[in-house]
């Protein structure tokens, strides 16, 4: 059932994407931006229902797979963008976020979740939910920062290259984009820090050690340090082009590790039997 609702949400996401892209091409039609936001809000709500149904159908098991994680991530990204819209006038950002949501979501529509198994009870520590949600939200915020950074680099190319074409007039000012990237990186870093703390608590409880050189732990630590550095570098005058480039690198690392560590079985104890040596298991 939840997969059907999810498909409805995907259709709404597609509508929002179309509205935002056409708005980007024809910015004089301001109503398109409003329509995009409305469709995205509808998609967000329907998606929430799909997630709720998924939880009652599978007891939350689907969020332990890559598919479930990505679906949760785009939902949070959509929510974060809608929240952002309340404070900043950034309709053009929608044209950069929504296609990304769609691309991540579409594969999840066809691979049926089947009946995912819940991880062993031993892993299901109280801090686990917080760990998962904050990690995914952190990545979602890094994802929006990635979109804003791409906008920055495109606009910088226009401004610096003296090409005053369509992009030049449609994209916001460099300063606004730069500050947006910075805010998103900062917010993402805070949330991601929460995820690492919650993860450490879970690991200490389940694996009896906070740090076990698990590849996921190592990559997460690298990502955390990178974004932490980005937050710090701001104070020593880093901004603009270099900042945007680092933001891109950071997100590629996050998404790349997220996917690769789950596609290759048995690399990390974040999959399979979650390092509990339970009799059942194997890679999903």
């Amino acid at each position, binding site marked *: 059932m939840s997969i059907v609702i999810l498909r409805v949400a995907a259709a709404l996401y597609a509508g929002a994407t179309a509205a935002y892209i056409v708005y980007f091409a024809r910015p004089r039609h301001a109503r398109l931006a409003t329509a995009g936001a409305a469709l995205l809000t509808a998609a967000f709500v329907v998606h929430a229902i799909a997630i709720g149904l998924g939880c009652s159908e599978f007891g939350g098991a689907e969020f332990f797979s890559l598919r479930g994680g990505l679906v949760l991530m785009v939902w949070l990204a959509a929510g974060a963008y809608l929240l952002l819209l309340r404070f900043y006038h950034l309709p053009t950002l929608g044209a950069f976020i929504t296609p990304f949501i769609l691309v991540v979501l579409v594969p999840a529509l066809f691979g049926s979740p089947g009946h995912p198994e819940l991880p062993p009870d031993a892993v299901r520590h109280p801090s686990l939910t917080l760990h998962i949600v904050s990690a995914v939200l952190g990545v979602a915020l890094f994802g929006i920062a990635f979109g804003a950074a791409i906008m920055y680099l495109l*606009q910088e190319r*226009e*401004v610096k290259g003296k090409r005053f074409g369509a992009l030049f007039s449609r*994209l916001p*000012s*460099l*300063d606004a984009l730069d500050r947006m990237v910075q805010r998103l990186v900062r917010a993402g870093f805070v949330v991601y820090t929460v995820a690492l703390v919650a993860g450490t608590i879970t690991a200490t409880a389940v694996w009896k050690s906070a740090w076990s050189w698990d590849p996921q732990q190592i990559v997460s630590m690298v990502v955390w340090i990178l974004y932490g550095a980005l937050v710090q570098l701001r104070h020593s005058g*880093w*901004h*603009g082009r270099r900042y945007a480039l680092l933001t891109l690198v950071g997100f590629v690392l996050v998404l790349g590790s997220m996917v690769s560590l789950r596609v290759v079985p048995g690399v990390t104890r974040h999959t399979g039997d979650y390092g509990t040596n339970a009799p059942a298991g194997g890679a999903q």
Partner: protein
Amino acid sequence: MSGREIFLVGLSHKSAPIEVRERVALSGEALKAALGELKGMDGVREALVISTCNRVEVFVQAGGEEPARRFFTARVAAAADHLYVKSGVDAIRHLFRVSASLESMVVGEQQILGQVKEAYGLASAAQAAGAYFSRLCNRAFATAKRVRTETEIGRGASSMSQVAVELVEKIFGDLKGRTILLAGAGKMGALSAKALAVLGADRILVTNRSPERGLALAEQVNGNFRAWDELQRLLAEADVVIVSTGAPTHVLTREMLAKAMKTRRHRSICLIDLAVPRNVDPACADLDDVFGYDVDDLEKVVEATHEARRGEALRAEAIVEAEVLAFAKERETRAALPILAQLRRRAEEIARAEAERTLAQVGAKLDEKGRRSIEAMAQAIVNKLLHAPTARLKEAASSGDGALAGAAAELFGIEGESPRAEPRGDAPAAAPRAAAPERT
């Protein structure tokens, strides 16, 4: 004669030098007084004066152009050689074109519509503009709005200062809390600095080799003067640097900028080089977060805008032409209406009288239905008889042929009664004060 038409007498940047324009231009109370004077002149029914720095134009609805011409010649004799005169549809077209910014020095600029609206507001307040100009101006404004939304004539930056403003806006968003540095006392530099004020720059620094000119410029742009030796340090402070010195070499070098960027902690800086030969080493723009532009870059954008606007102007012309024709046609149809109304009234009076006479004779022998039939028959005869003349008159009026209306008036013998037409509240006939075209 009692037939009144619209006349335009004016001068603009195309016909008169600034020395003449500034002498005839009026504003505020003086303009109001002049409007009152115009209105008071013999034969002037309504008047409108558009007075901007690029054009002074007097529109009157009157028996002739003379009152409008006197507006200029009575005050400035020299204006007589620069005046142009238009009447009727040509005058209407001119007003539409001016409002739509097709007559402007910079085609597509947005201010003129506001100025025409202001002119109408003033004429209206001075009771110089009445029903006719109200309709005319409203149509002109609607046309201008159509042109603005349906074409891209107002898009793009049309002057170097405007390009500079647009660039700076795309880099910094606004200039609140930021600093502009004017290096050199060139005239273009001062203009650009003033243009940038719209972005909210609150701090303007001026530096120049000769302190005298620098100080004068600082006063002119409301800025602070700094010594020329401080240039390197000023680069660390300023976010937008406008360079226009007379120096034949690079005043800002790559080394200076590289050093300044370190002190600035790589906050973006925008260099606008308005000097020829160039004062800013083009290699500066290779540095990260340094955005450099020279006169050529700005000029190219201006040229592209003008190119685009020329194309759009053709589309705008078509819109204006269609609206002018629609307006003129509507006017002429309206002008024919009083005659038609009188014709019909006269015919109906006769029909009613004849029906009553017949009924008085034979009415007693008829039942209610029979009496109705006689009334209806009389009415039907009137309708059938007037159908063709009505259609022909409307057609002739809308194609601009006033002769037929005059002939009809004469033929049906309603000419002498025309003054009685106005007080009658005969629907649309009451509104147009441009009385029926008639022969005297």
